[in-house]
């Protein structure tokens, strides 16, 4: 039984919770970086690729710009679903132990 704040801080479940939270946050932040800077760097160095026509006049750059926004939103959802399902459950178990 865990009773004090000190004990809970040292509990392996708590340490694991903190680590998994920042690993998740780190990976997702990195993905946002790759998505956004990937697009910005393409604008800088791969103009011809972005200017490729994929329709009558539509260029590849247009759907890619929309994709940057869509991916950002999807990554947000991934975090929320992960936190709602996994993170909150571990928090609830740890809090129960602390209160009893």
């Amino acid at each position, binding site marked *: 039984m865990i009773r004090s*704040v000190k004990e809970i801080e040292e509990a392996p479940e708590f340490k694991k919770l903190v680590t998994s939270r920042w690993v998740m946050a780190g990976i997702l932040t990195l993905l946002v970086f790759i998505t956004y*800077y990937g697009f910005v760097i393409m604008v800088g160095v791969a103009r011809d690729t972005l200017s490729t026509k994929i*329709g009558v*006049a539509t*260029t590849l750059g*247009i759907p890619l710009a929309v994709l940057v926004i869509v991916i950002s*939103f999807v990554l947000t*959802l991934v975090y929320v679903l992960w936190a709602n399902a996994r993170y909150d459950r571990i*928090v609830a178990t*740890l809090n129960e132990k602390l209160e009893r």
Partner: protein
Amino acid sequence: MQTTLGQPTASAILFFLCFVAVSLLITYWAARRTKTTTEYYAAARQITGFQNGLALAGDYMSAASFLGIAGLVALKGFDGMIYATGWLVGWPVLLFLIAEPLRNLGKYTFADVLAYRLANRPIRLASAVGGILTVVFYTIAQMVGAGSLIKLMFGLPYEVAVVIVGVVMLVYVLFGGMIATTWVQIIKACLLLGGVTLLMLLGMAQFGFNPGSLYAAVAANYGQAALEPGGLITNPLDAVSLGLALMFGLLGLPHILMRFYTVPDAKEARKSIAWATGFIGYFYCIIPLVGFSASVLVGRDLIAKIDKGGNMAAPLLAELLGGTPFLGFIAAVAFATILAVVAGLTLAGASALSHDIYVNVVKGGHANEREQVRVARIATVLVGLLAILLGILFKGQNVAFMVGLAFAVACSANFPALLLSITWKRLSTAGATASILVGAILATLLIILSPTVWVDVLKNPAAVFPLKNPAIVSMTASFAVAFAVSLLVPDRKAQAQFEVQKVRTYLAVGAE
């Protein structure tokens, strides 16, 4: 086409008066529920994740992004779309790094998080400096934009427009506090999202709801180049620096951070970002369609003739497709947008003045509930009057750089200390204070020496500092100073409290 832009039309005034009447009713309702500090600053923490998501979107989607990006796309084509993407990417990062710990550790302002284990007086003073500077720069941009836009749309004199915006929003914040401000943001977000959606649909109807036909028409009128990357990104380092400022600046905007205290817990804070990202992302996806439609249907010549920056592209499209009544509606939406954003900023500035400086620094945290609310209201009036004064003072000035400056200060002064106080045990009071001050001063100084101010505003031949946005230098320096000074001047007391803070950060034990 003939346009009634610049004349106060009956429909514009009617829609605007409707908005003001409804928002004042809400303020009256909210004022009766605003007696304690938690009600005044944090809407009694009764806002749901969905409502806060809308309110966050309302705080963030300014008239400048609505009218400005539509105009940029209309005049510059694809380059405007590139610019639009940068405004969204901060939101997921805000969720991953800051939002939940901020909610669990703080009470009313982001300085609460820093003051959790660092020495109260110095850190509150420093973060109030960072916070107030950010709010002031952001407010100048909004007020000057408000004055000029309203002059363009309604033909009202600049000063009258600034005073109307200032006084109406002051009524919301002063009497209704965060409850009224939140509901004004929610209504504004719905009006803006609805109005832009309708405008986009009316525009797309002209092209058989087929984006491909729209782009073909753009290319037929202005050449294929309108759909290709042009001259927006010439220096990659500049693009990276601006990207950093947009991404991490959001994580240091006091009026955005403050909104996370209006929800009951970290879970609702998390959900509110998902909603906000959805709304804002949708907004930035459809704005380019409005811009492209305007360039084909209204024509670049007319758009540029009325306003060089293209700001009137969306209102002109509204008039062409929906006549004067729709123009009036869109103009009123733009007005409401400005009002709501300035209200949020004023409340954030007032909370830094009253909660951080007066209650915690001057009174050492000892002030009763009545006194705190009274001081909060006095601070609100001061910040509101300052906003009006700054708006008039900067009349006719080129303030395009002000939003960039606000983001640069936010990401260089507020964000590094905030992130490190949550994650790094050895962050000391001296380290955090130095980091905030260095970040704020360096970001401001480098912007003055950059091409945006040194050349464009002060008309010097060459810039002293080469980058348009200093984030890459000033934010890095701020982190470096935080590390170096914390190691040189350690803070044993702060380190000892890190464990307790950690339990509260992740388990919400003892969270407000």
